[in-house]
Structure formats: C-alpha cells, structure tokens
C-alpha cells in the first residue's frame, strides 16, 4: 500500500526513497506518508523542475551534492529547533551554540585531544548550554524567547573567550573526513542530517516522547492534568536542541576546517524559517521534523538556483523573505491556507468546537 502511494503520488527524491521490506518499511512508509500528501514536497519538486529549466548545471550530481551538503548544518539545527517549537517554545541560542561547538572542537584538537574526544567534549558543552536554557525556562520560568536570547549572547561570548584570539584552523584528517567527507558518492554531512531527521521523525511519530511533546504544545495545561511529565519533557527539548546544534557545529567546523566564534551568525533564524516553512505553528503542537527539513531544503534550493543565475546576494535576501511569507500563507498550517479562512477570527474556536 505504501509503495503504491509513493509511486502514484509524487516523485520522491532519492534521499527519501526507502527499501520496501517488512515492518520497517511499513512504519517508514507511515512516516513518509504525511510528507508525500503535503503540498510541501510538491513545491520542492516544482522548484527543482523549475531549476532544471533555468540552469543546465542545476541537476548535476555535483550541484545537488553541494546544495545538500550546504543544507546539512541548517537542517540538523532545524530538527533541534523543531523539538523546541513543537512544545510552543523557541530557541534563539542555536547559532551561538554552533559557533561554540566549532571552537571547542578546534581548541580541543589544537591542544592534542584525539578528534573523538574533542567532538564528544563539544557535544557535551553544547548539550550543557541547551540544558541551561531548559532550566531557565522550566525552573526560573523565564519566557523561552528571553531565556534563549540571553543564552545566545552568553554562547557567542563564551566562544570568543574559549577561542582566545582569531580563528583556529583544524587539520585533523580523520575529523574532517568523518564530518565533511564522502562515503561512496554520498557526502557524510548528508548521511548525518538524513539520519538525524529520520530518527527524530520516528520518535516524534511513534514514541511516547513524541506524543508528550505534541500534547504539551497542543495544550500544556491539559498535558499536566493528564499526568504527563511536562517539566522534564520541556527541559529535554532544549537539551536536545543544544546537542543537535553541537552536532551541526562539528559538521560546520569540518566543512570549513576551522573553529571560529564568528561562524553561524543568524543560523537560529534560518532554522526557525525552515521549521515554519515546514508548516509547524510557532504556538506548538503541530508539524514534524521531516517537514522542517524539507522546509529548509526549499529555502536552500531556491538560494542555489539564484546563485546559479548569478543573482547578487542582496536581492536574494528579499526573495528569501518573500518566500517565507508565501510559504506560510499558502502551504503552512495544516490544510487551510490562512488567506482563505473566514474573517471570523474571534468566533473561530467556537465554530470548530461546537460543531454546529
């Protein structure tokens, strides 16, 4: 059944194609189904077709590899950001944590740590930063926006302090290969982000953890009064977001062969844009990690097409902004584009609840 849906529905890009065997594929199919039935993927495919006609280089394996490699960092952050947003929160500190992670890894290796140890250390530090945001939100009850805004500043500052001086270059071949090399013809960053995406999507869809997060985002009070561990779950999403930002930092550090406090500026906003274009509501309770990543890819592919058409970066920013608006108005939300809703905003909740 799933196979039929996939072939009859829309063209599925290679990264999403899955072997059709047994239980695994059935559950994966159920994972993929909401994406296939969504406009989002259709839009992505349409853009790809569009790009094909605009530039002969667009559909070369080299260019596609480049786009995906470039999108890996933001995609991993976007998945982390999604966990936070689905609970109704937001995490502005992710870009700073990415920078911090690159610096910690670079400094570690410069001081003779094996790359594995340096990477784990970077992940731990990133997770710890996320945990602090989490504690500020659940214990000190600071609004997520404010708490993570503060952590964004602290994170960026700390990476300067750890770095001491200008950027630190990374020369360890093993590290660079693992996070930025290729396995066969597939770039490792792509493998990393696709695995992060699939594992997260799996947990959101099939685990009690995912249910909890949707419930908390849908109605925190009801989740609490149903006996869910709201505090613990909320804390954990910030930790996860920090951890995934750390991973994104390692990829970025390997791609650029450096650690620097100046990296990943504004990535938090790119990640939020990806999640939002992916159809999640900032008030929580909706969306999924696959869509968040697809949302990010839409932005990335359009950027790539504009690059191939040698459009300068300033107009690109304008296009990107317009794109976000269009995406949220037309494909965001679940089914009904906001533009076509009735004007009865106040009565909206009554209308949908009373059912008469």
């Amino acid at each position: 059944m799933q196979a039929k849906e996939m072939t009859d529905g829309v063209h599925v890009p290679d990264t999403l194609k899955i072997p059709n065997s047994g239980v695994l594929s059935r559950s994966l199919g159920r994972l993929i189904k909401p994406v296939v039935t969504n406009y989002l993927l259709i839009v992505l495919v349409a853009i790809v077709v569009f790009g094909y006609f605009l530039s002969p280089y667009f559909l070369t394996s080299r260019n596609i590899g480049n786009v995906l490699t470039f999108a890996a960092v933001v995609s991993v952050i976007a998945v982390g950001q999604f966990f936070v947003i689905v609970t109704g929160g937001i995490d502005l500190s992710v870009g700073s944590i990415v920078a911090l992670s690159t610096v910690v890894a670079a400094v570690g290796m410069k001081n003779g740590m094996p790359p594995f140890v340096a990477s784990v250390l970077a992940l731990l530090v990133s997770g710890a930063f996320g945990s602090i945001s989490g504690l500020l939100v659940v214990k000190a009850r600071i609004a997520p926006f404010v708490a993570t805004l503060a952590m964004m500043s602290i994170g960026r500052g700390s990476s300067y302090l750890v770095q001491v001086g200008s950027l630190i270059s990374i020369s360890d071949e093993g590290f660079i290969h693992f996070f930025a090399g290729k396995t066969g013809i597939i770039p490792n960053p792509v493998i990393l982000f696709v695995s992060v995406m699939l594992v997260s999507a799996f947990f959101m869809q099939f685990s009690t953890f995912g249910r909890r997060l949707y419930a908390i985002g849908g109605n925190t009070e009801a989740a609490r009064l149903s006996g869910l561990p709201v505090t613990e779950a909320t804390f954990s999403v910030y930790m996860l977001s920090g951890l995934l930002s750390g991973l994104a930092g390692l990829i970025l550090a390997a791609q650029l062969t450096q650690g620097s406090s100046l990296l990943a500026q504004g990535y938090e906003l790119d990640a939020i844009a990806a999640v939002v274009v992916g159809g999640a509501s900032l008030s929580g309770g909706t969306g999924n990690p696959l869509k968040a990543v697809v949302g990010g890819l839409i932005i990335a592919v359009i950027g790539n097409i504009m690059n191939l058409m040698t459009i300068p970066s300033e107009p690109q920013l304008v296009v990107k902004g317009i794109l976000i608006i269009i995406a949220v108005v037309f494909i965001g939300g679940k089914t009904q584009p906001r533009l076509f809703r009735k004007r009865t905003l106040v009565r909206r909740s009554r209308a949908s609840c009373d059912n008469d």
Partner: protein
Amino acid sequence: MVTIQGLKKSYPGVLALDCIDLEIKGGEIHALLGQNGAGKSTLIRMLSGAEQPDDGTIRIGDAYHRFRTPMEAQKAGIFTIFQELSLVPELSVAENIFISDLPKNKYGVLDWRLLKREAAKSMEWLGFSVDIEKPVKQLSVAMKQGIELAKALHRKAKVVLLDEPSAALPQPDVKRLFEILKNLRANGIAIVYISHRLEEVQELCDVATVLRDGRKIGSYAIAETSSGMLVRAMVGRDVKSSLLGEALAGENRPRLGKGETGDVVLSVRDFDDGKILHGVDFDLHRGEVLGITGLLGNGQNELASCIFGTRQLEQGVMTLNGRRVSLKSPRHVINAGIGLLPEERKTQGLVLPMSIESNITLSSHKEFSKGSIILRQREHIVVDRMMESLRVRATSSKQAVGTLSGGNQQKVVLAKWLVSKCRILIFAEPTRGIDVGAKEEIYQLIQNFAAEGGSVVIISSEIPEASMCDRVFVMSRGTFAGELCFNEIDIHGDAILNLCCA
C-alpha cells in the same frame, strides 16, 4: 421586531441550519433551546453578522438586512453577548461602554467628563454600582456582562442576543441578571436567551424555540409548556424513563451511586490553603458517589484544585487506601490512581488538535508502549472498544478532539481515565455546557462506574446534579456547612439550598 424566514446555512458536510423561520417580538424574552449541534450557535452567528446565511432573509421592522460584518448587525440594532465577552480588559468601564464612539470635545480630544457622566448614568440605570474608572479586568463576570449590556443600550440596541449568560455566574448574580433582563423587556427590547438550564427558561422566558439537527421543532409559549415537553422536543425521544426525565418530572429522584458503600478508599483531612479553604475533611467509600456543592465562590474550585495538585496547600493530607498521596503536582495524584476531570474540558482536559485516540491514551502511555515505542495496534483496539462502549460519536478515532461536541468531549476525557484503570474519579462540573441527551449518558456512565466498585467525587454548583449523589457536602465560606445523605435530600433540593444559605 425581527423576522427570520427560510434561513439556511451549510458547512462542508453538514447542513447546520435548514429553513429556519423565527419571529422575535419586542418586549419578549425568547429562549433558544437545543442540544449541542442543534444549530443555536450557527443561528446566533448569522444574526450577529459573524457569518452570512446561504439563503433566507432577516427582516428588522420593515427593512431587510444582510449582515456582512458584526458592525453592520450592530448598526441595525442587533447586539450579541457571547460567553467570552468582547471587552477590552485593560480599559476602564466607561471607555468600554463607549468604545466605538468615544465622545470628543471641540478640540477633538477625548471628553472625559461627558464620558464618565454618561457611563455612570447607564450603569446606574442597570442597577450596578461600580467605579467606572476601574479597568474591566478587575471586575467580576456579572459586572462585565452588565457592561456589555450597557454598551448595547448605549448604541440603541433593539435586539440583544445572550449566549449562555448564566453559565459562569454565581446564583445571586443570575437573579440580578434576570431582573435586568426583565427590565429591558419592559422597555420593549427583544431578548434572545440561550441556556441549557431549563429552570431558568421557565422562570425568565416568554417563548421558547427548540432546534434540533438544524431544524426548528417548534415555538412554545412557556406558560403552557412543561420542562418535560421541552426536553422531549430537544432530545426527540421520550425521556420519561431516563434519569433526567425522572428528575424533571419530579417523580423520582435518580441516584448515581449504588446506595450501599464499602470501605473508605480516599480520605481528605484538614485541607487548608491559608486563603480560602479551611478544615475540609471527607471520606470517600468504595462504590460511592459523593457530591460537593454550594454557591459559586465558596471554595469548591479551590478544593478541586487542591485535590488535583495544582494549588498549594498550607496543611492537610490526602490518603488513598491508607497511603498518603503527594499533592505536589497532578502527576503525583494521577500516579496514585486518581482520575481528574477538570471543569474546563477544552483548556484543561483535552489536547484539542490531537486525535481522539491520542487523547484517550494520554494518561496511560506506560500500558500502551514498549521501550517507549507506542504499540499502535493495542492502542487502536482498546480505543475502539472504549469509544464504542461510551458511545463517542465521531467518524473515526483519528478525528481531532476539538471537532467534537461538548458531550462527546467529556466522554473522551472520561475514556482517558477508564483506560488508565483508575478506581477513583474526581469530577469538577461534570456536565457544564453539555446538552441534555449527553448529560444523561454521562450520568449513566458515572452510575456504571460506581456500580463496578469505582468511587466518584462530583464537585458541582448544579444543585439537581448534587442531589443525585449518595452523600452531599455543602460548602460555605471555604468549609463544609453540612452533610446530607441521599434520603435527607428532597426532590427540589431545598435541603441543600438551606445549607448553602446557612
């Protein structure tokens, strides 16, 4: 005053209103009755300009109207007071009354003197003594409704629509609201009154129109119609043999519990929150349905919150089968095996965007998962069985809970606790906002639950509801004023009322 002819409205998949004819006269209080989903709210939305009918006409006096916005309806003299009032909480009483046409002096600046004078006058006319400079958010619901009425009168309302105005009001305020409405009626204003409480309709209204499934069943002169007849018209079947039918006919007082009770399962000792509650003690027995009632604002809500673990206690203990229950958070209470059914289903009981299925298993993730992966198959089987036995009306278990009617939503909340196999249920206002037919079913479910050895506490401000319990505690000023056994309660609940006022 208002004549509606052939009004039709359909939403995707449902015909919400089917050729409704209705005449509302000036100087008349017209009740609009019907179960949830009957079309009352839709009709109100058409009249208030929130939505437009597909077909049909609305005539006020001699002029035909087609309202495209609430503003146009108001210009034509139709004002609607919704349950969630449309006041600006930060602004003062006076500013709220004049919100659409604040008086300006000759310099084009707000004329505060005139504003205050006029506002004070109109509030006084309604019989409210209130500081008109106070921000609205500091006032009680009754006061806010008064302000809405003042706003309507200020703009020369000919017709006032009230959507369940008494639902959130304590008893004395309901009386006062009735006085005001009667006063408006005497002044020739037409009033459309929606309520689920038939005793109010009997007391207040002149005419009742009953809707069912989007059709008009009939209009009845209240003076010649019994509550039983209205209920029958609303439900569409003979309810004589039902619990509520019996109660309404005054023949027999139904009983929710078994009547015989076993050992003490839950006991509450010396609850004190340092503010409102003090010295609250009770025991709950196996198979017992215990009612806690009283006039609104006497501590029932606070007591419920304390038992739910959402309100800090200064002292007091709760024990379940002799073991102390931590009241630190709802999670602790629930883990001890107590099910909580809060008053506000939509904001506290359910995750509206989630499916019925996910809501039902929300409190029993442990039983429905293995290594934190949800066992879809088991979940599906249990949920389907539960939906069938509770008769939850939905197209599928995947449907979002937010799209269900109030009664079905309450059933989903109940299903959540039945699935979690808890033996004790604490209800706060179990049937608030639920229509007659569904109320009946909820009562039957409570009856079954108690018959199978479960124990129930019902915290309710509806006296007829409380009088169906095995024992009733009446709250007054934060403590129990008295305890009544089932046999001590008379059919009209006067014994309870006496204790309320004691």
